């Protein structure tokens, strides 16, 4: 029983990281119809940026903030201006393919330019663990849970309670109506891209200590972010967190009770079950099809 609870706790912690990456993915989809297949590489890149800043002597918090800014500029503004904006008029598929091309470029560029080694990454939280009611919880898990959970809740509050957040949601729901109501749609879309850049940096900070920083680390995290987003409901921001946590917990349980070798396959199975039984996702609403 103790094992079980511990697996669930650390699964939730890992799941919130998937949730953070999935959240950015969902927001991009809602605000601009961009299915970003480079989301995993968007997490890998800030991890390398942080390593670079750490390498020139910056403390972790400073490296994180610097990487956040780099990520928002590069993966937010530049990604939107250079790739998304010119391609949106062509429809969904060319954009999806461009993001696939981007993922190849970023991954292979890092492999060619930096190398194929896995670099260790310092944890943002102290090592060790403590016990509550007989359950051992590591500080890293607790810190991840608090930071990632806090960010998701803060973002949710921002989207629901502030004028800007509600305007962003309005753009996502009905772009034309939002424009008629005087909302600056372009600016709102830009905000979403900036938020996605920042979320990618957060996910990188949290996942890099356990995944190690490597050119292909984005493959796994990206895949889980997609699945978390779809499992939770592609058009629901809350769904991303639920999907992420569900994957994180089930992965841990399967890894322990069934076989550690097939941990990575859990997300696919849950995804297939969800789209068979509830295609709109656990929290999602069905969408109408436009002709």
């Amino acid at each position, binding site marked *: 029983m103790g094992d079980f609870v511990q697996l669930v706790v650390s699964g939730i912690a890992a799941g919130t990281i998937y949730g953070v990456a999935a959240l950015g993915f969902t927001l991009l989809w809602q605000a601009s119809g961009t299915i970003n297949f480079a989301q995993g590489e968007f997490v890998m890149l800030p991890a390398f940026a942080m390593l670079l800043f750490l390498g020139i002597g910056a403390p972790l918090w400073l490296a994180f903030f610097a990487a956040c800014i780099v990520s928002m500029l590069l993966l937010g503004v530049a990604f939107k201006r250079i790739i998304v904006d010119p391609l949106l008029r062509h429809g969904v598929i060319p954009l999806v393919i461009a993001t696939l091309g981007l993922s190849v470029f970023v991954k292979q560029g890092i492999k060619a330019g930096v190398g194929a080694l896995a670099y260790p990454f310092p944890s943002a939280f102290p090592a060790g663990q403590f016990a509550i009611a007989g359950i051992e919880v590591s500080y890293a898990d607790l810190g991840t849970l608090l930071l990632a959970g806090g960010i998701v809740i803060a973002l949710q509050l921002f989207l629901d309670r502030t004028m800007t957040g509600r305007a962003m949601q309005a753009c996502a729901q009905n772009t034309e109506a939002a424009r008629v109501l005087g909302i600056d749609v372009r600016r709102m879309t830009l905000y979403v891209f900036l938020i996605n850049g920042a979320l990618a940096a957060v996910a990188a900070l949290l996942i890099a200590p356990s995944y190690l920083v490597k050119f292909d680390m984005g493959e796994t995290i990206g895949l889980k972010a997609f*699945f978390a987003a779809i499992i939770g409901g592609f058009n629901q921001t809350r769904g991303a967190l639920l999907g992420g946590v569900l994957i994180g917990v089930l992965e841990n349980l399967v890894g322990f009770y069934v076989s550690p070798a097939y941990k990575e396959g859990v997300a696919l199975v849950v995804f297939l079950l969800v789209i068979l039984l509830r295609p709109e996702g656990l929290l999602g609403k069905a969408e109408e099809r436009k002709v």
Partner: protein
Amino acid sequence: MNASSSTVIARPRRPAVPRSRTRLALAAIVVIAFALLPLGLKSYGTYLCSLFCVYLMATFGLNLTIGYAGQMSLGQAAFLGIGAYIAAIGMKAGLPFFAMLPLAALACFAIGLALGFPALRVQHHYLAFATLGFNVLVFLVLRNEEAITGGTFGIRGIPRPSLFGLSLERDLPYFWFTLASTLLLIALLGWLLRSPWGRAFAALRDNPIRAESLGVNITAYTLLAFAIGACCAGIAGAYFASLVGFIDPAPFNFTASLLMLLGVIVGGAGRFLGPVVGTVIIVLLPEWLRFMQNWYLAAFGVAVIALMVWLPGGLLSLPERLASRRIGALP
């Protein structure tokens, strides 16, 4: 924002397969030249030509899924792997190649149906995600089930078949055998797309919603296109196993699937010959551009983005694009 159900990259109105005598004659010359090419090459060159044919089978199948059904499959390498392992395991057990080939094809067809069914019921390109996850899963199975697949050590000593008593053990006969099989498969696909039944695929490509309103069951046809595409990869896998003689999980990873997908799109998805251009780019060009090493793939990624911005129909749409620009320039 809603996505239209299945947007196709380019939907110019044209017959499913180009059919003019000059083109046919041209194709025959190219094929004969290609068939004679290895006579002047060393064994590695012959191997590359055979490899090119193997990948051509897989990408022609993939083109059916991408170009005609408008769905993205990121798992073609997984089907290639399934075909290769089925053929390898069977042939190591002493079964003949020609018994394993249909088995590999059927298995991939069936798995394609089973995987595509849940994913294609819903839109948003869920098939892309499902196949991506599937590729990861297949890779794990190939690597972890050592008792069956040999794990990372792979399976070695896979024999080559013999045809009508002629041994195909040597490189050159095996290349001709693979080339002939590839042409047969391409001809079959061409025939399929031209048959009254297969014309629905072109209707699907040009306008899925119109096709549906004319009575084409788009879900069934999309699923079928994907399963046939998977089946082609299974066939290619069997030839691959015999060609290389040693298989391990590495060539069947997700990156291989991604490159095949991007290759077909760069060539021109939905164009019958798009996969030829795409396969040249992903199989042959990297060999010539060895000095670039990893940068080749990075540059390929940039090229894909640039192509999507300026020429979303792929390289083969360039002549049409230039022609339409010239017409547009007339007063």
